[in-house]
């Protein structure tokens, strides 16, 4: 009968009214992000608070957009000192390639998505500044890194 389809549609919206809202009221309630969720990059630290980064530059090379910028100096004893490790969060596409490429687990994709800012300076953040880089602990991973670095050079 003509009009039955319309009434059926009305019934569907009534049923949805009865189901109740599914809204998560954001600033007051938050969704828990899954473990794998990828948001802004964060540097990981050892238990003693020193960075795990060895300044191997793998992540910088892995980044498709070139938004990571690591400047360091190598001392005579082959240890490295990180001047700045800068990260342009405003251009980051959060693909996670830098984290995948890191042989030392020194980077992670954080779960902080509240990145909005009114200040253009905040679009670039400094992950590490003026710290000593960790030394590559195991030969194998360091070798891997060296090989990879040489590969890409």
């Amino acid at each position, binding site marked *: 009968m003509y009009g039955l389809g*319309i009434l059926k*549609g*009305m019934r*569907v*919206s*009534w049923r*949805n*009214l009865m*189901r*109740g*809202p*599914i*809204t998560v*009221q954001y600033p007051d309630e938050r969704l828990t992000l899954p473990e794998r969720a990828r948001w802004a990059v964060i540097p990981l630290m050892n238990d003693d608070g020193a960075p795990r980064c060895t300044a191997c530059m793998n992540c910088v090379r892995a980044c498709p957009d070139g938004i990571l910028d690591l400047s360091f100096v190598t001392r005579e004893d082959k240890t490295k000192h990180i001047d700045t490790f800068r990260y342009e969060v405003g251009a980051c596409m959060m693909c996670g390639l830098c984290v995948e490429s890191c042989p030392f687990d020194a980077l992670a994709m954080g779960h902080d998505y509240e990145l909005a800012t009114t200040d253009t300076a905040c679009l670039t953040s400094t992950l590490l500044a003026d710290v000593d880089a960790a030394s590559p602990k195991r030969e194998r991973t360091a070798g891997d890194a060296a090989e990879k670095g040489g590969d890409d050079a």
Partner: protein
Amino acid sequence: MSPGVLALVSALAALGLMLANGVVLIYMLRKVLAHFHLRLGPMRVGWHGLLQTPADVLKLLTKEDFDPSATDLWLFRLAPFMVFVPSFMAYLAIPFSDSLSFTPLDTGVLYTLAALALVPVGILAAGWASNSKWSLIGGMRAAAQQIAYEVPLLLSVIGVVMIAGSLDMSEIVKAQQGTWLGFIPRWFVIPQFGGFLLFLIAALAELNQTPFDMSVAESELVEGFANEYSGMKFAFFFLAEFSNSFVVSALAVTCFFGGWLLPWVPIDLPVWVDVAVFLTKTYLCIFVLMWIRGTLPRIRIDQLLSLGWKGLIPAGLAWVLLTGVVVKLVP
């Protein structure tokens, strides 16, 4: 009180009612639609978003409303008046209770319909004056739609007028007093169900409401006739739209749902109960309109027109004659 002062007081009261209605209805629309769509609607401005509409109004008040270049300046500025004033005047004849209305009018039903009939002319003016193609199409659609649905709307209440024998809205309500067989309220919606269906469809079209929201068809004409309007000028279109839905719902309640009458309660009730009953019924009607709005797709302009001309007008004429026969046969 002299008649002039009385008129002024009632007009001010009507203005207050209209503005209050606007505020309440916009809030209600957002909340009701939100809940139909699994959402919450305004929540953060005031308790459960109660201050949302005042905030919107204040913002619109301070928003720049400029006249884009090459508009037909006078018409562009006049259009909000042409839409707002008739829809405000339509409040005049609504009977809130036996004794309470802004002014008793012998021709109340016809008056309300005539006032509403002027609104699309204003919309046409807005669309024409805007110097924007989408607006122009929106305005033309509004006028074409009015042309097709004015007649069915007029026809749909004739049956009611015939039974009640009056155009006075309170007389129409009084004709619906009592019950049939002791429990069915004597509301005209039952004997005049065909007329009610006609009224529902034609009123939706007259209100520019989904599924007939031709002139503001968002997915087709962006914002339709109101494309170039900003700030307070736009707010008046918006307000008029909501106020019209109140007027039409009030008309429906008066003509088909027994106005302020509470069924099965024969005793005379105090005025405030009458008013409360009337407003409750009206708001229920508006709720149904919102329900429709949240559900249905939009009809196409040519389908709309042929529905009006080929469906509703013949049906309306037939219904009028049928009612005439039945009224004569069943006194």
